[in-house]
């Protein structure tokens, strides 16, 4: 409560790297992600645990490729901002591949180790079964975590203040942040069809939640990158 107010530069939306590959791949990525999910969907419905587990690997690879190609790793963003002067064109950081791959793997590690348990706990708080389906819930959290938090860790690092702003929805919207918000809201909305009496196999836990998260990710990323870009989320 008594923290001395640090002078922080105002948060700015994350820009996609300016390379051609980045500009193209950022649009291909959600299609690939959704295709992967659509391809895996029948097996996830049939037997969620092994299918969700095995699809984590391609999802992780896709996400790492995405952040490595399209996003500025943590730290580089602020540097760019500070250097930016009126009229100056933004420089595309031409860093060697290792400078991107290592942070990407670090983000993966952090997402799996920290974000997944936290998200699993949140899922339980929102009503996930507590005495059964542990692996279902944990894997569901892992998918949400890879979709939502991996890119965020990559661009924002582990700065506590930034993460507080992430939770409080205080950051300006961009593709990464939009993707995260979309994933979470999608997962929440994914619970709606479960009680319906359609007697479909896919209504079982946690298929609808994961589906909602994937769709939410794609929608959120699209909205965050286009009409929502740079906006602040207003509550009142």
């Amino acid at each position, binding site marked *: *409560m*008594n923290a001395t107010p640090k002078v922080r530069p105002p948060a700015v939306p994350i820009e996609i790297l300016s390379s051609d590959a980045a500009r193209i791949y950022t649009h291909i990525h959600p299609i690939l992600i959704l295709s992967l999910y659509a391809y895996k969907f029948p097996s996830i419905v049939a037997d969620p645990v092994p299918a969700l587990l095995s699809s984590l690997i391609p999802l992780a690879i896709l996400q790492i490729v995405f952040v490595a190609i399209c996003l500025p790793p943590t730290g580089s963003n602020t540097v760019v901002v500070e250097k930016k002067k009126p009229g100056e064109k933004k420089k595309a950081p031409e860093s060697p591949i290792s400078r991107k791959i290592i942070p990407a793997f670090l983000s993966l590690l952090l997402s799996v180790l920290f974000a997944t348990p936290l998200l699993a706990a949140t899922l*339980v*708080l*929102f*009503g996930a079964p*507590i*005495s059964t389906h542990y692996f279902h819930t944990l894997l569901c959290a892992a998918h949400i975590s890879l979709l939502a938090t991996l890119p965020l860790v990559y661009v924002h690092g582990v700065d506590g203040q930034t993460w*507080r702003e992430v*939770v*409080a*929805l*205080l950051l300006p919207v961009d593709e990464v942040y939009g993707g995260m918000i979309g994933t979470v809201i999608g997962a*929440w909305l994914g*619970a*709606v069809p*479960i*009680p*319906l*009496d*359609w007697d479909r196999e896919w209504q079982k836990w946690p298929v609808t939640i994961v589906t909602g998260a994937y769709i939410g990710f794609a929608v959120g990323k699209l909205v965050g990158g286009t009409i929502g870009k740079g906006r602040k989320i*207003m*509550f*009142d």
Partner: protein
Amino acid sequence: MARQTILLTLANVLIPVAILVFATGFFPYKPFMPGLAVFEEPGWEDTFDWKEQPTPQFDKLVFMVVDALRSDFVYGEESGMKFVQSQIRDGTAIPFTAHATSPTITMPRVKAMTTGSIPSFLDVILNFAESDTSSTLAAQDTWLAQLKAKDGGKLVMYGDDTWLKLFPDFFARADGTSSFFVSDFTEVDNNVTRHVPNELLNSDWNAMILHYLGLDHIGHKAGPKSPNMIPKQIEMDGMVEQIYTAIENEDHLENTLFVLCGDHGMNDGGNHGGSAPGETSPALVFMSPKIKKITEFMDRESPAKPKGEFEYYKKIEQSDIAPTLAGLMGFPIPRNNLGVFIEEFLYFWDDGIDRIQILLRNAKQIKTIVEATYPSLSFADEVKEIDCEKTLTSGEHLACKWQKVVQAMSTVATLHPQMRVDFLYSFLRDAQNTMSSTASNYDVSRLFLGTFLAFVSFGLTFLTLPKLRPISSTAIFYALTLLLYGILMFASSYVEEEHNFWYWATSGWFFYLFICESRKEWFPKFIFHPAIMLLLLHRIIRRWNQTGQKYAGAPDIVHSALFQGSNSIILWCLVGATYMDIMVRLSRHIARSISSLDDGKGKDPVDFESTDINGFIGTIAVLPLTATAFVFKLAFTARDAPELTHGINEGLLQWVGELSLVGVAQMVFSGILLVASWQVLAEWWRSKARKREQGNGDLAVALFDLLALFLVTQTKAENIPLFLLFRSQLFFLTLLDLTPTATTLTTLLLTQTSFFALGNSNAISSISLSNSYNGVSTYNLPLVALLLFASNWAGPIYFSSAGVLLLGSHGRAQRFVAKEELDARDWIAAEREHLEKLVTKESEGRERRKEGSGAWRQHLGLLTLGVSSGLVAVMGACSVLREHLFVWTVFSPKFLYAGAWGTFFHLGISGAWGMVLWGAGKL
């Protein structure tokens, strides 16, 4: 200002009007034909040489109802009723599955069996208002009335007192048992059985009715697979054997027909009320040595395999019992009967003319009802040309069928009697189907008028709300909740699983509150953030009782090993903690009231602090009340749910077992009233003595805590710890800085959530009757209705009142720090900031409590908006989906619930009681 109040009042008045208008269209009052039927000329005397009437086959009747006797309990391989099964094999018993229509609860089922009619859904309400005279069958034509009207007619009845309520002064001898304690498996039945041997020796009666309740109690308590079930079936089987042997051996019982039947079945959870196959498939067995005559060529295999779910042997309608008894015993068919004489019994009469006459009388009786329903169509007895080839309405279809009967009856050609029988059955069955389906009976214009009125109420409420811009995200959340709720009301599965919607929305709302608070200020230990704690408590609360249809019977906290058997001591510790919490709160109120008397006039009483001695006196004053309430709960549970008291000391249980429940409950209620009056008096006194204009609203808090004690008394023991969790939620809510709109939304969500968390659902079968007779010694309908409502809506009443307190920050300690006097030099900046915030918070609540601030009106307005939009959705769904397969099982119970929410809860609690509380807070 005044205009808005008028509009809001109007909107609220429209709510019950809309419900009433809709109800009259949805449950049309079925006119019934009064008076007893008499034998009339069957007609076609020139073609047929009728005898007087077919010889009656029986002159006495033993009608044994075993409550909830599902078909498989008698016919299945696992049944304990071996004697009945051997009778089926011998051919002295004819088995049927008698289809019971929804609502499958005792009173409408007894009506169906005795009158032959299909009771309307209104009987469900009347079932709970049992003493209502309009629901008795005293004035209606039943086989009981017909048998009583016979020469020497005398009826005796032992068992469920529903019969005594339905047939007042009908029975020469009777002994009613009420199904008050569901845990009673033996006493209720012994009370019936002990009369049977003597009555079998008496020859003065011509009908004996027995109604056993024990099997139903076992179902409610432990389900159809309970270990008590088979022994109970064996016991019932023994009764059947005893009666049947008497019929075989006693001369005066020679011509006795013995009917064994269930009034309804039960589902896998042991409950009933809906229309699952298990609930609608009771057994029906006719027994007599004479029956051997007609069973010669029938399927007599037993135990049997079901054809469909619980469908054993031939499936007939429950209403068929009435005309069948009429034919077999030779009395006129009751006037309102829609049943059809069971075909197998026709073969008692060897002469085809007798068979035709029996069916013709049945057909003419039903035709009278059909004629009354379709006055424009011709059902005359003369041969006519009717075009039966075009597409027909259901009425025209029946007219055609009747015309075929007329033609078959009038023809001079020699017809085999069976052909005429077939034509008669064709008419009878179609008439039964058409007349039983209520689709033709809706008054559609009233359905739409009712929905429209609810919509007008919604519109008027909307006008009373303050300006909408800028739109806050809370308002959007509110609107989206109402919108989504409205949409989901059209999905039958979401009506059954409504709790999931509210649990889901409440989780989302608490998380939203967490984000909202985090935007203002980051809470360092965010795991213990009040909103996260709310979410955690919510997660526990929603698992307390499994409710709904889809996962009925799934594991939940109440049924876990945590509270069962010897572990019940854990439950009682939590129950005790709940009572202790209430006691501490009440003692503080008493202490404060004493201190204000001490201080006397002239001084400004210290508002919050109280001396030790006052606190001590307060505890002494409320200890007897709360202790009595606790003892009452223990004594009640020891009788109602003994499995929850295994962990309690035997001696204690014995002591509470001797207490008079009615007396103790009356003591609790009087104590609550006494403390309430004292508090009102003391607070009134204090407000006079106070110099400052406005108090803390302590009276409202005191009334709320007393209400909590009342509600806990009206709650089943296993649900009482929920009130401790509710109280904790309330505590965390006061820590959050809720805007008025957010307070109202929280109220709405938590009233709904707590309703379902206490184990309620939108099914009639989930209504709990057990606490509705607390302290009632003589039957008093308004009182029982009030207690019934309070016990089923305890959670919503609690949170509705809590919402009022939250809105006005009632009872919050006030420092009256003058903000402008705060000097930067006096405190360090942070402290200053902290105090300033407290001051704003306090004054905000104080301001809202002031006259004319509109906070209360806006609160009620938003709640009215929720109720009216919900009603629009439910009524709309019932109107649009009135031909839906589930309209009687899902949508009409939901409408009844919506009606109860709209009238009793919204007008009574949110409106009237809320206004009392709000007014008390101003003192």
